[in-house]
């Protein structure tokens, strides 16, 4: 029987952002790169994001945030993912995130952070190179 593993990605927007243009651009780019992209819309709580990742059994989560609340929301998301046993999910982020916060967020386990103006090719390439192994 032919096995065809598809890469599933959750693009999620935690917090109170009022638009999701960037998230949609990334979602579309990853779709066009052949992935299955689950998009959940604006204003998601960390609980919703972690539970969605679990139910959808995604390989990758992309978090998009513009509001500046990343230091409050990202640690909570990472904590919930760990609680749910989703430690093999690769998490990356994008949006308006100051340079000085990047190291701290990476320490939480967020693999990469992309600022405004990042070419979608860069993101696609990063994702393709960082697909987590599955047993």
């Amino acid at each position, binding site marked *: *029987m*032919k*096995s*065809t*593993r*598809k890469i*599933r990605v959750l693009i999620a927007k935690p917090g109170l952002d009022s638009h999701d243009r960037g998230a949609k651009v990334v*979602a*579309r780019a*990853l*779709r*066009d*790169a*052949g*992935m*299955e*992209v*689950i*998009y*959940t*819309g604006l204003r*998601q*709580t960390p*609980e*919703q994001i972690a*539970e*969605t990742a*679990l*139910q*959808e*059994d995604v390989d990758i989560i992309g978090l998009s945030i513009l509001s500046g609340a990343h230091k409050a929301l990202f640690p909570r998301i990472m904590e919930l993912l760990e609680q*749910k*046993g989703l430690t093999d999910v690769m998490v990356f982020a994008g949006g308006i995130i100051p340079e000085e916060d990047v190291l701290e967020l990476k320490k939480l386990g967020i693999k990469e952070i992309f600022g405004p103006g990042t070419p979608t090719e860069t993101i696609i390439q990063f994702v393709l190179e960082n697909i987590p192994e599955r*047993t």
Partner: protein
Amino acid sequence: MTRIDEIAHGVLAGDRRSVARAITIIENNTAEAKKLIASIYPHTGKSHIIGLTGPSGSGKSTLIEKIVREYRRKGKTVGVIAVDPTSPFTGGAFLGDRIRMQELSTDPAVFIRSMATRNYSGGIAKATKDAVKVLDAAGKDIILVETVGAGQSEVEVIKVAQTIVVIHAPGLGDEIQAIKAGLMEIADIFVVNKADRENADKAVMDIQAILQLDNKEPAWKTPILKTTALTGEGVPQLIEKIEEHRCFLEKEIGRKRSLGKAETELVEAIKEKVTISIIDELKREGKFEELLKKIVEREIDPASAAEKLLHGKFKKAK
């Protein structure tokens, strides 16, 4: 215990992570998928499976959110499988049905899974049927299957669901659209959603007129209901009708339909198995490639080539 045993065990215990993993295994059609289905199958058949279909923009996802809430109010556990199309060009998919249902995602009695068609035709994915079995085995009372925005011929959902709800909305198409074959024929319940819009009554009348053209006196009279998914108006009545239909199935034709469904599933499983094994064998014998070349060179047409290949096969089988 093997990994598959563990996952099957988890599914039966209702563990959400195991359910999610099981569906992925089925979607990726690994060799493990067959083992998994074999071990959960005896525990299926308890859920009521409801298919919801209709054109894009008729409000399927929004209505499903309200239906789930209503069932939850009644204390039922619910699984949802929402199907969206895979791009035939890139193989990718944008799965956005959850957007309308996200508030349900933290309810532990609700499990929602988005699924791409992976180029299976008919409005659902090839894995949908077996994913339903996973949710069934996990103990969900109600399973809702949302098809892709369906036109006239996307009727595969009847192979999966017991009660089919066809959702229309005013302004999406006129009587001529409604008279076309397919969707009209599979409906157990019709819903005209967005009933707060003008022309909702006209849409109801259009559907009614078409249903009346059917001279047969059916055992189940297909009702036409009005809902407004945004406010939830009409949803309790819809649930009532779905329940009525479930009782009707149990009493009237439940067993006949189950046998019909079992036959379809068995025939399909045989087809897949036979096809794969014959093609593998032909490839090993080298005849397959040889004929492919001939087809490209226009020396033989594909149907005759197939006949030629299979002729020898079936003789041997006898």
